[in-house]
């Protein structure tokens, strides 16, 4: 059944053309490695902010938010807000001046997080982090490629192309990964970080333009805000329903959960991940770099509404059923048969059940309940509400998520490769032209590796669940090292190195000894020996990250105390206490803006309490 009309295709093609043309028009400006890897460090704050937000809203996040809306209710919005906004404000107010302004030889600003670690600590910490970062970035780029390709294949977007080429079903999936991947690679190779950030701005706008009509139509259908609230079972709208083990009461457990999510998950993402921070580090000066996370936080306050509401609406709509409609018209009898796959029919609302790839039958969990494929909530709502024409824009929005995340991974990993592997260890006296070339080759090689990871994920679906583990192994310890490095001048290189390794091992140990209820030991945890049972996968992921963070923090601090600190003269500009003095906090526009954003976030979340 052809889902896309020619109008939809026209809009998708125009969108693709615009993304490519950003690369083509910026290619002549890529004179040196600074232009290519750091966008020349001359972009305005609002552009950095929009790109930062877009890079942080990759396909996994968007699908996850839609899924959380369907699974945990509107209250999951508070979780996403908590997991990001305080961390973004902290990044803007405290970390950006240190990361952006750090310059060991004057005029040579820090280009990446590993490079900062090299200046602040030592070369072994830098090498370790660069290697881990590359592995993580390319792995998760591959996973998000696969996740979105699955959605595109389920929506039959590229079926026309694939049928024209006579491809088998796996070919459609491969094509849905390869076409967007090639487009991203083309504009990153041509225009570097600048093209990626220009496109992230466009992607952000397309995301809003494609999803807002769904939200508006969905609300209208449900009878407005109050109509929607009335249809929901009591407690489902509550902020913490389903999130923790406590079931929605403000007790110690909930407050602890809130702190852990805010500090570890939010900090590990928005204060640590170079895929996001690179956009702020490309700003034209320190104050623009500080503004970028604040602008992103301001937009982030309302963004989850756009993603969570469609997923939430999906549950309330009627489930498609196989129907036979018999009509009697002018004496002739028509049988109209609508066939719906069993997995769709077994679902709840528009959320289908997970289909067994071999039989197409719905998969059942250990408790006999049908497992729902929440990631399809969002795409199905798009199909249900958007007429052809607008549907093209909605699909462009889904594609935009895939591309902004993949492009951010690609530009970040080519910067890390060129600066922290190639120039730092392989060829110390490399010329600027050689660094530029290394960056471009790294982009091409990185996309190849990411595509390989995507193909591996296609073979074994379990890899999708490894993303949270990889985050806990790499980002949570790194956040501890960065936090201590930027704020505590006593932290040493040996301490940070030991902390990163200890955090990685701690994440593996925690994951290996905990098993969510109703899961088999393996990629879901408990592969060493099962010692305890977290409530669900989300609790396991949060617990693993928190454990890795705490272990890394303790190890870094204690090893630092027993090793020799670097003299303060060497740390000029690399630690917060050695930064040039800035005005008292109530005189800075940034901190006032941050306070306003925090209040707005609280106000929006109170709507759901």
């Amino acid at each position, binding site marked *: 059944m052809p889902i896309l009309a020619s109008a939809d295709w026209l*809009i998708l093609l125009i969108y693709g053309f615009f993304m490519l043309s950003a690369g083509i028009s910026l290619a002549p400006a890529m004179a040196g490695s600074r*232009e290519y890897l750091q966008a020349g460090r001359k972009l305005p704050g609002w552009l950095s902010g929009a790109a930062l937000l877009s890079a942080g809203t990759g396909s996994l996040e968007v699908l996850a938010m839609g899924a959380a809306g369907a699974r945990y209710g509107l209250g999951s919005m508070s979780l996403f807000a908590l997991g990001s906004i305080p961390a973004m404000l902290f990044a803007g107010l405290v970390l950006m001046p240190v990361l952006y302004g750090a310059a060991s030889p004057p005029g040579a600003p820090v280009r990446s997080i590993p490079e900062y670690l090299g200046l602040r600590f030592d070369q072994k910490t830098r090498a370790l982090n660069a290697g881990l970062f590359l592995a993580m970035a390319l792995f998760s780029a591959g996973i998000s490629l696969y996740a979105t390709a699955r959605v595109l294949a389920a929506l039959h977007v590229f079926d026309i192309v694939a049928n024209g080429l006579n491809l088998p079903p796996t070919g459609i999936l491969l094509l849905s990964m390869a076409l967007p991947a090639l487009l991203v690679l083309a504009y990153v190779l041509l225009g570097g970080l600048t093209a990626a950030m220009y496109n992230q701005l466009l992607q952000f706008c397309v995301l809003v333009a494609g999803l807002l*009509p769904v939200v508006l139509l969905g609300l209208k259908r449900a009878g407005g805000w109050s109509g929607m609230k009335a249809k929901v079972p009591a407690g489902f709208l509550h902020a913490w329903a389903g999130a923790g083990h406590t079931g929605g009461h403000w007790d110690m457990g909930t407050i602890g959960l809130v702190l852990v999510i805010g500090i570890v998950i939010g900090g590990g993402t928005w204060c640590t991940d170079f895929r996001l921070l690179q956009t702020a580090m490309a700003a034209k000066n320190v104050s623009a770099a500080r503004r970028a996370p604040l602008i992103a936080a301001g937009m982030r306050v309302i963004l989850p509404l756009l993603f969570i509401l469609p997923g939430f609406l999906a549950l309330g709509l009627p489930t498609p059923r196989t129907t036979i409609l018999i009509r009697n018209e002018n004496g002739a009898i028509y049988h109209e048969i609508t066939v719906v796959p069993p997995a769709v029919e077994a679902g709840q609302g528009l959320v289908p059940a997970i289909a067994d790839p071999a039989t197409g039958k719905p998969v059942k969990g250990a408790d006999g309940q049908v497992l729902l494929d929440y990631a399809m909530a969002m795409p199905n709502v798009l199909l249900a509400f958007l007429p052809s024409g607008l549907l093209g824009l909605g699909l462009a929005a889904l594609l935009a998520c895939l591309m902004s995340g993949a492009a951010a991974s690609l530009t970040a990993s080519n910067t890390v490769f060129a600066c922290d592997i190639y120039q730092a260890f392989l060829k110390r006296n490399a010329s600027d032209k050689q660094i530029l070339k290394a960056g471009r080759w790294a982009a091409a090689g990185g996309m190849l590796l990411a595509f390989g990871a995507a193909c591996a994920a296609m073979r074994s679906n379990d890899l999708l669940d490894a993303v949270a583990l990889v985050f806990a192994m790499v980002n949570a310890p790194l956040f501890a090292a960065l936090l201590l490095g930027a704020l505590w001048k006593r932290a040493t290189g040996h301490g940070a190195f030991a902390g990163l390794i200890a955090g990685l091992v701690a994440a593996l140990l925690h994951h290996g000894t905990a098993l969510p209820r109703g899961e088999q030991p393996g990629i879901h945890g408990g592969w060493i020996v099962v010692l305890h049972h977290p409530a669900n996968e989300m609790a396991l992921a949060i617990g693993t990250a928190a454990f890795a963070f705490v272990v890394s923090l303790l190890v870094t601090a204690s090893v630092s105390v027993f090793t020799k600190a670097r003299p303060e003269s060497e740390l000029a500009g690399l630690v917060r206490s050695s930064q040039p003095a800035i005005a008292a906090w109530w005189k800075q526009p940034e901190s006032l803006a941050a306070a306003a954003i925090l209040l707005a976030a609280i106000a929006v979340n109170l709507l759901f309490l």
Partner: protein
Amino acid sequence: MKKASKDLTVKSAASPAMSPTIYVDARIAVGMFFALTGTILSALGLSTRGRADVYAKSLGIDANLWWGLALLGFGIVMLAFGRRGQIQMEKAKKLRL
């Protein structure tokens, strides 16, 4: 005077940071995209206006027309901002040279 200006041109050719290439303001591209898609969507909306089968999904609202017009408006606003930004950027460039 003449000598000074010559020195400047040599310097600007040598350092890539001062290269004569100018970035296009990002808002111009965004504005062009939305002006174009907005026009296409509203044209589609006009031509299919009143067709119940097309708009059954969107609760009988001609979503293409109305959302197309909204996007067209957004595109024009972005183009206006982008043009202003571009003029300022070129002015700043001229001052530096």
